């Protein structure tokens, strides 16, 4: 557990949106995907995943639809809406600026 990092406030939204940008995924798959892609460095607190999904849906950035999962069960698939894509772009650039800034501070001091 110690080499896994708790997510910064607000970054979970960013990660979720980025993860479902290529294709719609259900909640469990989103958590798995984030974990895999980050080489197990990031672990999504499952307790906070669903509130985040519902919040994003409520804000209109992602949309949910019931569909069949890989093992042919009913699951709720989330996909980015048009507003969500725009939001993702802004969030990504915001994040890049933030991490660049943080890196600079860390290197120069």
């Amino acid at each position: 557990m110690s080499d896994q990092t708790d997510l910064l406030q607000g970054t979970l939204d960013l990660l979720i949106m980025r993860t479902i940008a290529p294709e719609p995924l259900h909640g469990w798959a989103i958590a798995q995907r984030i974990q895999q892609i980050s080489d197990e460095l990031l672990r999504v607190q499952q307790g906070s995943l669903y509130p985040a999904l519902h919040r994003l849906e409520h804000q209109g950035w992602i949309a949910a639809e019931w569909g069949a999962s890989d093992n042919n069960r009913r699951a709720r698939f989330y996909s980015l809406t048009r507003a969500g894509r725009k939001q993702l772009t802004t969030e990504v650039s915001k994040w890049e600026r933030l991490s660049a800034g943080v890196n600079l501070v860390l290197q120069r001091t």
Partner: protein
Amino acid sequence: MRVWHIVMAWLRSVFLRGRREAELGEELRFHLERETERLVAAGVEPQQARLQARRTFGSVEAVKEQSRDARGTGFVDHLGRDTRHAARRLMRDWRFTLAAVLILGLGIGVNTALFSLVNAVLFRQNSVADTARVVDIYQDFPGGGAGGNTYPAYLDVAAYSDMFASTTAAYMPRSATFRQGATLRQGMVEHVSASYLDVMGLRPTLGRWFTDMEDARNAPPVAVVGHRVWTTRFASDPAIVGRILQIDGVPVTIVGVAPARHAATLNLGVHTDFWLPIGALPTFLGSDRVFDRRLNEPAFFIKARLQPAVTVARAQAAMSTLGARLAREFPQNNQGAGISVYASSGVRIHPQIDVVIAGVAAVLFLVVGLVLAIACSNLATLMLVRGAARLKEVSVRLAVGASRAQLIRHLLTESVLLALGGGAAGCVLAWWTTQWLMSLDLPVNVEVGLDLRVLGFAFALSLVTGVVFGLAPAVKSTRVELWQTLRGEGDAGAPSRRRFTLKNALVVFQVAMSVLLLSGTGMGLQMMAAGRTLQTGYAVDGVAMLETDARYAAKATEAARLFEELRRRVAAIPGVQATALTRGLPMESNGMAIVIEGAASAGGQVARASSIWAGPGFFETMRIPILYGRALDERDRAGAPRAAVVSESMARRYFGGVNAVGRRFRPDLSPDAWMQVVGVARAATTSDLNSELVGVQRFLYYRSIEQWAVTPKVVVARSTLGSAPLLRALQTELGRVDEALPVLTAKTMRQILDDSLVVARGSTMFFAAIGLLGLCLAGIGLYAVIAFAVTRRAREIGIRMALGADGRQVVRSVAVEVASLVGVGTAIGLGLSLLGVLALRVAGTNAVTGVANISLFRPSVDPVAMIVIGMFTAMVGLAAAVVPARRASRMDPLMALRHD
């Protein structure tokens, strides 16, 4: 768009809540199963895998909760849950809940009952088709302001057919009697024109309205029965049409039943029982003077339906022209009197009366509003005390992460729930009150009830109350020092030495308001006492009277003979010293304009005097001394020169000296009816003590009942054997004269005088009831505060007792606290009542009520009443403090020191 989105989400959450919940459950279940599958695939044993999946996921319920919150639709869920929680907490504390609901129920109930009355009088409109097209028309008083109309003026108005599609006149509603089987009932009758229903735009429920022919003078009387009396008294019997009923002893043919939900011409909440033609007025009033063009008795209301294109303004212009014309043609009666047109929707009863009624209603509301204020502040006190008692619970909840806003929301939900419960209790109370009011056999048919408007009022009142009395305590009791309370010190560690706390202020307020209300009682009592001790100037003890109506007798045409026989029989009753015939209550007066012979009439003020009917023997019966000349007696019969006896004060006022014998005067209404003053009587009051007390000045004169061709209705007698046996004997004799003669009124003189003080007695009872109610509530509040203070100071008391203080000292310290609260409250209350008395005196002196000539009783400052009220309040305070004080004094020091 975002707003729209949120609104839709909110609506969905309200209406699709069940589905949304099911989906959320399914989504999370899927997640857990998928995770379990993954673990199983990784080689974990299925049972173990399921547990592990759950563990990593955490609390499903918490996730659900947070997901709901994330949607921003938590509000509805919260409301539901908070309500459930609050209800459960209140159920657990059922004693507190019961007390709170009762307290609030009383406050809201009194308000709602009063509102239903005001609603019946002021807000309930009679059904009229297309009200917007109907107008009220009034001839103005010479000084300005809407007055009443004369009948000729109605005919003049009705001639404007280019303005008005139809016009109707209605005589001022009057009370009458009608016979149903063997019983004689009181009812209200209206005399209106044949065009009445055209103006109202309504159709009769049954039969028809009367025709123009039937409205002609001296036509055989017909009537339309009111819808309400038809249903309540005549069992909705359709056969009533065509039947003959006796109204005021006159046989009347019923031709129809009035429209439902049209109670009367005036929106007074009083239902008219019979509608009669105006042409029948002389038959019932015994005079056709009502048809004269005189502004002294302008007793007609005019309502008209406007022609399609005519506006109120145009009608007003036309009526102003008419007013100017009438003023020119009849300068004596119509000078300076314009004509006003009002849209009927803006008038309840009469433009002038509406103002007065609204004023009275406002005062009543102010008073019962005080009761509600007491009840509310009381509840606030209880909530505060309860909040303080729950300090620990609040602290724990704050410590585990509940936000203060959440806690306030919970507490507020509780108080709103309580208030709604109180509102429901209040409605029940109000319903009982109105049912009780309706069950009284009142002479008028009033419909007081709870309708949607009343219920809405109660609901709004309880909501506002809930927030008002819940907010401050909620804010206050969530402001805690966590570490202190959790260590079990509460704020007992630093006993508050502050005198001005919210709790204390609330109790002082309650006491002050109760004292204020109680001093209203003192005022009513003062007025009644003044009425009791008033020098009437006539005999009261041993005097009794009986009123009947000879028109109901088998031989109605021989009224004079019947009454003469009655008088003879009454005079023969053992113990009777004198008896006389009169009309109306003995000493009941009738004010009117008079003309004094030889006095300059032009320009100056109109002379007014009040007439009292007196048959031979009246002065002896009432023991009114004659100062000069003689009393009215057998000589003053019809045909003899008209005679009058004037009172001392009238003689001084209008005849320039006490001895006015030989002078002449006449009623302004009767040009040739000069009366000669044959005697001067010692000053006396009328039987209306209320107006005597408020200082209405009257100049009395007595005139012969026979010389004015007035049928007597009353026999009055004085007996040495007391008035109560006399009353019974009078009734026996009446039955012997003619079995059919009904007893309309049978009272002793004392009863008559007491009844005339009904306003004083009513307000005494009203203020006493709500003052006591307020004081009871204040007592409860005081009890709660003291009991709480004792509990809070348990440790201090324990230490003091452990150090050797005895119970008495402890009691004393509690007593000081009670005394200071009650003392300050009483002082404020008495101060306010003093201000009230002074204000009433000023108002009474200045006669500020320019609208209608209302006089006010001018109370004086009554130190005895103030002391009594103060002592009474102190007693209630003591009673409230006894239990907690005893508990404090018997406290076991050991227990007290360990007291949490």
